[in-house]
């Protein structure tokens, strides 16, 4: 029992570290990538001076994130004279917390066997015995449903923030956020339905394990090859759900100042921004898990590489665990970077276009995709 506690404490610590790390790093990635994409250098003036020396550490502007954080913590926490101060104070947390909770069901590695990992320390290995743990905070058989349940909660936060700010712009932003996020959540759910049909489960670990087989003898059986349409639509809907350009209508600064968080200042506003950046990582993690083979490299399972069914390249347990952790982070970073590429390439939609795009363009496509998938799955079963 204590062993479980230890392992899951480590998992939770790791997950928090990864999410906070991504939230901080992605602000830097966003700045730098935007700069490189437009022939600029990017933020590179914040530095840390080693005490008592003149040595200034710049490190490509990595410390701008720290400077941002310090600024937000030290700024005056200005509050509007709102008629609902409780909702006003609670709204950032309602946005921020579900984003963190979603990560609980996302597997960031395969099955961990602590005894095998700690072979060098016999006492510890004996203490763990033959217990195994999936590298995932909560292995629930309703994994994907939990993702959508928590994903839907951040709408409440946005609506609360807009409603309690006593500001027209906030209100408009909240209305936009509400209608947009509900529309795109529907599409996100429908795109994933096709995958559920194929994999026959909503347990994310099982979905990942199914993706390590091969397709037609040479392709890794990734979701993106099984459901290319769904992958594209899912990514588009997920970006819309995250309210980033080209779908950042709820906070369109040229129309609504800052949308639903106009009246927020200091770290409360920082929480909204932080939630947005963490959600980039969450969307990337979800996309990785559902469509890109999760934590596994192509043809890789928990025991090592398996090529063409018979050629097996076994790996030690430690090597597998490290590879899986690194591969998962690398894939997430890659997809996050792709989202930032989209954010700095596409112009913002008009508001009516956003909803038209959802209901008249993407919804029919997802339904067609779902129908075709259902028919194919049924005939294969046949």
């Amino acid at each position, binding site marked *: 029992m204590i062993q479980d506690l230890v392992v899951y404490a480590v998992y939770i610590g790791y997950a928090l570290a990864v999410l906070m790390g991504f939230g901080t790093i992605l602000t830097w990635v966003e700045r730098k990538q935007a700069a490189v*994409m437009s*022939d600029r250098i990017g933020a590179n003036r914040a530095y840390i001076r080693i005490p008592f020396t003149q040595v200034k550490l710049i490190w490509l502007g990595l410390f701008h994130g720290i400077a941002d954080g310090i600024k937000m913590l030290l700024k005056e926490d200005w509050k509007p004279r709102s008629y609902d101060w409780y909702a006003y104070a609670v709204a950032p947390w309602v946005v921020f917390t579900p984003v963190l909770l979603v990560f609980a069901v996302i597997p960031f590695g395969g099955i961990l066997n602590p005894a095998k990992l700690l072979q060098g320390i016999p006492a510890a290995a004996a203490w763990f015995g033959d217990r195994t743990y999936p590298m995932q905070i909560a292995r629930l058989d309703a994994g994907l449903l939990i993702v959508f349940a928590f994903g839907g909660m951040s709408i409440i936060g946005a609506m609360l923030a807009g409603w309690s700010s006593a500001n027209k712009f906030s209100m408009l932003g909240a209305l936009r956020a509400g209608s947009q996020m509900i529309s795109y959540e529907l599409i996100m759910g429908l795109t994933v339905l096709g995958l559920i049909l194929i994999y026959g489960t909503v347990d994310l670990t099982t979905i990942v394990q199914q993706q390590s087989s091969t397709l037609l003898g040479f392709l890794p059986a990734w979701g993106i090859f099984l459901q290319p349409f769904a992958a594209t639509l899912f990514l588009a809907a997920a970006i819309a759900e995250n309210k980033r350009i080209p779908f950042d209508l709820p906070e369109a600064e040229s129309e609504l100042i800052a949308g639903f968080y106009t009246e927020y200042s200091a770290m409360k506003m920082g929480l909204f921004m932080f939630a947005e950046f963490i959600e980039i990582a969450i969307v990337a993690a979800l996309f990785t898990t559902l469509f890109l083979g999760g934590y596994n490299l192509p043809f890789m399972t928990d025991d090592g590489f398996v090529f063409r069914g018979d050629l097996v390249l076994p790996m030690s347990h430690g090597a597998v665990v490290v590879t899986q952790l690194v591969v998962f982070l690398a894939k997430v970073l890659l997809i996050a970077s792709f989202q930032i*590429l989209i954010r700095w390439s*596409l112009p913002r939609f008009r508001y009516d276009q956003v909803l038209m795009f959802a209901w008249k363009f993407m919804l029919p496509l997802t339904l067609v995709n779902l129908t075709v998938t259902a028919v194919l799955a049924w005939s294969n079963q046949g």
Partner: protein
Amino acid sequence: MNKKPYQRKVYWNAPTLTWWERAYLFEILRGLGITGGVFLRNMWKWMTFRKGALTTYYPEETRADYAQNNRGKHVLTQRPDGRPQCIACNMCATVCPAQVIEIDAAFDPDDAAHPKYPSRFEIDYSRCIFCGLCVEACPEDAIRMVKEVPELPSADREHMWLKLDELLQWKPQSDVAKPYPAKGAASVGPASAGLGKSTGHKPPEGGTTATRAKGAAA
């Protein structure tokens, strides 16, 4: 009840999309290809230790390719002996729309031709608008603007004054467009210096000006 349903206004320049463009995805992918290509190109340059940006690290780095007629900073022209040609008449300070030029005049009994000279000539670059009116107002061609920019960046405005020592840093010999002193002007003597200078903008005619001045004197 016979109210017409709302119809969106059709604009004269409403874009007509082909079905290819209507499908969004392909055009979006094309756009992503362009921006992603620029990103990869620049990234490759950075990774091979070259500069993948058009930006210069100002102030550590300044551009060498300023235009010839860039009004970067002021210089004071000098007499052959190195003293400023300025006669402290205050015309530039008067005409200056930003009122940033400050001149203290002093008396020099040794130079009979130019007894008045600036003991202090300072320009506040935090307020200067680089209009060049001081250059146009100067009757002595004593102040000019060159394309180089001064070392401006500073934490406070007190350090953004250009003083006499820096204004006199200019090396006239290196200015090909406007050589100074004008050819032949030095040999004529102080009396006709003004005349020689006024045509001194065209170097080949400098000699003829001097001869004409001599002829006029004869």
